[in-house]
């Protein structure tokens, strides 16, 4: 696999991981590029003990961690995706709904401790195995399982709370 193939194969995965781990929409491209720049520099150190995907994921998690701490992420301004020339209203509506759901997902995820969030995102959204996640995070597999359990509980609680708020607002009860 050459570097371009690696990039094309894993680009979307890296982008998704960065976004779900708190990198803003505007910063995701920069952060993604940083991931691949680092990957390129570190190729000689990749020993094949994990999959390329797992290896990239580890880099992405660290880059996301940096971005969360950086001023860049604090300057984040949510804007629509640039290419938005669709003239079909139904398509626009569908996109809008997707964006709203994604925004909700990110809000819910942002309420979790980052350790739980990472396990949840990688296991539930990226379908990585518990073993892979444990290796990448350098924690016992039992820790992965417990973090996942806690993350699911927090996720459900947050979603239920939001639903309750939405119902009250719809009923005219305000907040």
């Amino acid at each position, binding site marked *: *696999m*050459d*570097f*371009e193939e*690696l*990039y*094309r194969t894993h*680009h*979307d995965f890296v*982008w*998704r991981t960065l*976004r*779900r781990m708190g990198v803003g929409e505007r910063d*995701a*491209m*920069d952060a*993604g*590029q*940083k*991931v*691949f*720049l*680092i990957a*390129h*520099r*570190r*190729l*000689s150190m*990749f*020993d*094949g003990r994990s999959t*390329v995907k797992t290896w990239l994921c580890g*880099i992405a998690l*660290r*880059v996301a961690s*940096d971005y969360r701490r950086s001023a860049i992420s604090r300057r984040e301004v949510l804007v629509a*995706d*640039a*290419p*938005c*020339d669709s003239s079909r209203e139904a398509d626009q509506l569908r996109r809008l709904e997707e964006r709203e759901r*994604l925004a*909700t*997902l990110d809000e*819910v995820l942002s309420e979790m401790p980052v350790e739980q969030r990472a396990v949840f*995102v990688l*296991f*539930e*959204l990226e379908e990585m*195995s*518990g*073993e892979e996640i444990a290796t990448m995070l350098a924690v016992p597999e*039992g820790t*992965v*399982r417990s973090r*996942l359990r806690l993350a699911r509980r927090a996720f*459900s609680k947050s*979603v239920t709370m*939001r*639903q309750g708020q939405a119902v009250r607002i719809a009923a005219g009860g305000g907040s």
Partner: protein
Amino acid sequence: MTNPKRWLDELPLESHERELLLVGKAARPAEGTLEVNWQALSAALGAAAASSTVVSGVAAQSVSASAKVGSSLVASKAAGTGLLLIAAKSLALGVVAGLAVMGGASMAERAIGGGVRAATPQSVRNPRAPAALPAPTPFAAPTAAPLAADSLASASSPSATVPGSSLRARSLANGAASTLPASRAPATSTLSAEERTASLSRQARELAELKHLIDNGATTEALRRLDEIRSTDAASVLAEERDALQVQALARAQRRPEARAAARRFLLRYPASPYFETMRQLLTEE
């Protein structure tokens, strides 16, 4: 550990948790992001990046792979900020090459009139301008190997800074910068090599995104972003390419008086630009 079942396999079909997980799994970057990023990444890495080999998982491969990878590492490092500047400029030239294709008599038809017919660049009468806009050239592979691969390894942490202390890399960076008019010298001279690399890479990618927008007719958005970039990054080393794109966007939007005014400003500001003749012809065309 026995993997627990995925939540999606257990959640009720109508649950909100499931809905959110599904949209999260299906999320993709905006269309065109992959290509735009690859262009910028190529600019940052140099041509060697494209041919480097990923170790495929067997330790024994590391020796030969290291040789291949090492060369690309050295190459990409040697590219440093200076060659990256050249690379970014090359990329930018490629990005705005469409402007040159709009050159001469056909420009009014294609840009102002909004036509899409293919046209060849006109011959150039201005001796300061090249015969045609250079195509996006492959990024120069450096011949020197100023940095050892192990020094790059120390940059493996995302938060680590690239050891940019190579005199060679610095001289390249300075040399490239010194060829720019004073007004276009990077305002970010105090930035580290890594920061400059990131900045140039970002700017090159922004230009590629803008070109993508213009090509897709999203000229309003392109012009809005150009204004935004100009207000925050006025001293960009790619300002010339950015301003050329503004003319292109205005022309594509059929805002002819503004396109002509922008072209006039461009000529005054960049008298030695490769786009000089194209801009001049835009002004002389009806």
